[in-house]
């Protein structure tokens, strides 16, 4: 890896009931790097993402973010980290249906203490960058799946996170919309310097990453970063 890792997981173990979801998984992610986490259904890739993001605590192993041991952090610290330094994009169901698209994007900024006016201005900027500025006043129910995902990406990046976690962000979209979302997501993340942990089972989505880490039976098989 060319740069010092921003996020590291070492020998993670996590079980839900008798079946291990993670069985010694390790990963390193450098600042500004896009890493695809691939593997078949049930291989443990989403559990790995949840452990990296401090959503799930591993049974054993360590997660380090910018030198901090997340496995030793309490819930308040983890919550602050997820709100301030991490962004999230999931497959669907992440926008608040009662709020407009602009209000959805402004929401994490408001929670972070931003004034209403500043939050609205920044939200509109992000909607513009994701090419959905015209949807600002619409609710999520009034936009298409692809448009909704672009709003979700805008919301995830609005707080300028250092790590963006994306779990099957194009899983519910057709090829063309999926590609549009990935192009905008990868460009916006690169422009803002965010690292991206991208969980996907789709090779064409993984092709937007710098390298891939394959999860199989809860263990990881890493490949070297590309030099090109």
């Amino acid at each position, binding site marked *: 890896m060319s740069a010092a890792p921003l996020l590291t997981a070492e020998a993670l173990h996590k079980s839900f009931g008798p079946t291990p979801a993670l069985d010694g998984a390790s990963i390193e992610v450098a600042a500004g790097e896009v890493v695809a986490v691939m593997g078949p259904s049930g291989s443990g890739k989403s559990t790995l993402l949840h452990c990296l993001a401090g959503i799930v605590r591993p049974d054993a192993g360590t997660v380090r973010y910018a030198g901090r041991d997340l496995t030793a952090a309490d819930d308040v610290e983890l919550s602050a980290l997820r709100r301030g330094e991490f962004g999230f994009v999931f497959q669907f169901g992440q926008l608040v249906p009662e709020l407009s698209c602009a209000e959805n994007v402004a929401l994490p900024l408001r929670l972070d203490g931003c004034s209403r006016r500043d939050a609205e201005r920044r939200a509109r900027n992000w909607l513009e960058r994701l090419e959905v500025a015209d949807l600002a006043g619409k609710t999520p129910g009034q936009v298409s799946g692809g448009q909704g995902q672009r709003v979700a990406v805008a919301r995830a990046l609005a707080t300028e996170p250092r790590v963006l976690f994306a779990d099957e962000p194009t899983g519910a979209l057709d090829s063309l919309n999926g590609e549009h979302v990935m192009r905008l997501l990868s460009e916006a993340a690169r422009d803002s310097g965010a690292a991206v942990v991208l969980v996907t089972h789709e090779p064409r989505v993984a092709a937007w990453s710098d390298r891939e880490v394959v999860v*199989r039976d809860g263990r990881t098989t890493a490949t070297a970063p590309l030099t090109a």
Partner: protein
Amino acid sequence: MSIAKTFLGLLEGGPRHGYDLKRSYDERFGHDRPLAYGQVYATLSRLLRNGLVEVDGIEPGGGPERKRYAITDAGVADVDVWLGQPERPEPYLQSTLYSKVVLALLTGRSANEVLDVQRAAHLQLMRELTRRKKAGDLADQLVCDHALFHLEADLRWLELTAARLDQLRGEVVA
């Protein structure tokens, strides 16, 4: 697909006559295109000349079909190198990849590693095409998309094979 490498992989299980090699090759990898005897003995002569196989015994009667061939240490090393290298990613390479997976299983090597190396090579090419597509015009994008969809089909086959390795091992090793 390399007949010579496949013969070497088959010989790792023990010395064989040319006829046995042909029969085993046709059964496992022939896909309705059996090898000609001339091809079998020409391949074995080349392997012999290159020190990758040796004659393990000759049965009375003479003739090439009476020789029993064994793989040498150099031959085993040659199989190692071959299985460890990805095939050049291009559409319709499944038959070579399938042979590599089967030979890895037959010789006790990691078939998962064969698939991992190939996945990495495919994804690297897919990244290059994605970068080219981003910078290109619509014609470029469509040309790259065509290649990307074919490569993706290979990878879907690869993942399906990875998920069925235990089953395949049971069938080919039995």
